[in-house]
């Protein structure tokens, strides 16, 4: 491995944090969805890194990562479908304008 595991972990943690930040502050729902992709990617980075170093079975982490990517795709699909459906009714993609349900 070219770089120490710790550095990769720091990278993924930062990526995760940035992703969460995006989720927390992005007004646009699509923006939030792509921020979630950042989170999932940070997870994948971890998984791949660990599968090279610590895993009992090197395949394990990679397979996990593949499934994560797949489910991220499904999640994105479903999410975008819902966003589209909502946009059709409310003509908005801004979270702070989606507040019929409250209290």
């Amino acid at each position, binding site marked *: 491995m070219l770089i120490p595991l710790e550095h990769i972990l720091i990278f993924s943690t930062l990526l995760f944090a940035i992703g*969460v930040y995006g*989720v*927390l*502050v992005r007004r646009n729902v699509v923006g*939030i969805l792509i921020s979630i992709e950042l989170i999932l990617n940070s997870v994948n980075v971890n998984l791949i890194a660990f599968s090279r170093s610590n895993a009992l079975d090197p395949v394990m982490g990679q397979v996990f990562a593949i499934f994560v990517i797949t489910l991220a795709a499904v999640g994105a699909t479903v999410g975008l479908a819902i966003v589209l459906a909502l946009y059709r009714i409310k003509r908005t993609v801004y*979270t*702070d304008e*989606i*507040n*019929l*349900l*409250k*209290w």
Partner: protein
Amino acid sequence: MVTLAYLIPLFPLLAFAFLIFFGKRFGDKSAWVAIGASLLSLILSTPFVMGAVQGQIFVHHFEWLRIGSALFLFGFSIDALSAMMLFVVTVVGTLIIIYSVGYMHGDPRFSRFFAYLSLFMASMLSLVLANSLLMLYISWELVGLCSYLLIGFWFEKPSAAAASKKAFITTRVGDIALFLGMLLLFFTTGTLELRNLNHEFLAPFASQSKVLTLAGLLIFGGAVGKSAQFPLHVWLPDAMEGPTPVSALIHAATMVAAGVYLVARSFGLITFFPDALLPIATIGTITAFMAAFIALTQTDIKRVLAYSTISQLGFMIAALGLKGYGAGTFHLMTHAFFKALLFLGAGSVIHGTGTQDIREMGGLWKKMPHTTFTFLIASLAIAGVPPLSGFWSKDEILVSAYESGMPIFYYLLSITATMTAFYMFRLVFLTFFGKPRKEFHVHESPAIMTIPLWLLAIGSALVGLPGSPWMNHFFQTFIEGSHGAEHAINLFVMGISVGLGAFGIVLAWLLYLVFPAVPEKLGAIFKPLYLASNRKLWFDELYQATVIRGWYALSSALAKFDLGVIDGLVNATGIGNLRLSDIQNWIDIHIVDGAVNGVGALTRGFSSALRKIQTGFVQNYLIISFIGALMLLFFELRK
């Protein structure tokens, strides 16, 4: 055969039960049930009285209640004192019931009246016969109940309704004292049996004199309530709201005397722990004097008699307190007769004139000869004119006071005796003599009323004789048993007493018949004194202002407290919950704001900027959750 004594109170009780359920159907005839019952009691009690006169004691009891080691026996024990009371209650009671037939004629609740009277007879008889203090207490309360019911018999009158309540509650204060005294006695000596209240039995408990003195005083407290002694005397004058036969029977002859009876009953206890004697004598004397003083200026015929009763009861109590056991009980008996007679006479007058105000009466003697004559006999008796009954008994009391070694008692009681003679004859002169001050269609009462009057008059005249030297102080020997004191005649006291009595009568004659204008002037001159007497020393006002008002004020204050504070607290927690809910809700609404404040780490300006954020905003939820998770992380990793 002895158990027949149970029947004595039972007959009136059955009469009561019969009358209360079926009385209405029998109308005027229902009275005869009551009369029959009390006659039966009278007849039944004769052998017991006779036996007691011969020195026999009848005892019988059964187990009423047993809780662990505490055993309560009910039954009767008839000794001299009970026999004397039995005699008085049955004789006077029967006569008064007969009299009532005439007096209550035409009343819509006629049968009810006799039902109550029967109940009273039953309770009073069981009080007299009771073998234990507990049973006595039970009967004691029951006579109180009858008194309540009968005072309020004409309950449509608000004053009667109020008076009955006042009577019951005031006496109940005394009853509580009695109750506590009873408990104290029970837990100290382990017995409530009245027969045990003698010196032999109490001897082992001599070391506990403080407790038992207190017990004695508490028992006396019961008598204070029941016998209308100072300071609980206020109920008795008001009790005159009841029908007059009731006043005669309950509030003159029997029930009020029960207090005296109780003190006489516990005489063994009181004398064994003599510290209690002085307070008793003092209360008695104060009552006697005070009541006589008030009686001087009353204008309501029954009220005069009521205060007179209080005064006479004070005499008896004082006598007992001055160790004049024979004197007190003797006066109890004589007083029962002449005071009953006085009340019945007054009843007859009221029946005839329709008023109770003596200022409106006058010159009734022509129209009501029987009433007048019997009334006069009774007045002479109470004024202590020899050889009528009152003379002998009152003289005994004065002798006791004289010999007590505390002259103040003697002086006060003597002055009281004078006042007694004065106010009684003021009453007699104003009512029956002089000129009629108002036109009435006066008529003499029917025979059914006058016959009891006459019978009682005979009694009033003669009942004192057994206690006179002519019969060798038979009564005193009888009542005090073998260990009774020697009775020498104190001629000095006797002379003074007769003189004072005569003085009172003459003074009354002068003031009310000869110079009828003088009393008013005197009243004006001694205005404070007059007012004090006329306004009954302001006892009612005082109690109203302090005790009663305080009582109700406390009550309403507590009620408000209950509604406001305790309930309020409960509701407040409920409201608080709602409030908390609102707050929580509000947090949900202004999530960031709330959370930010909650975290307390973010700047103020930022918080005010965040306030504008709308609700239902998913990223608010997310950040809350995220911060929550972070806090958990801190919480877990702080170690």
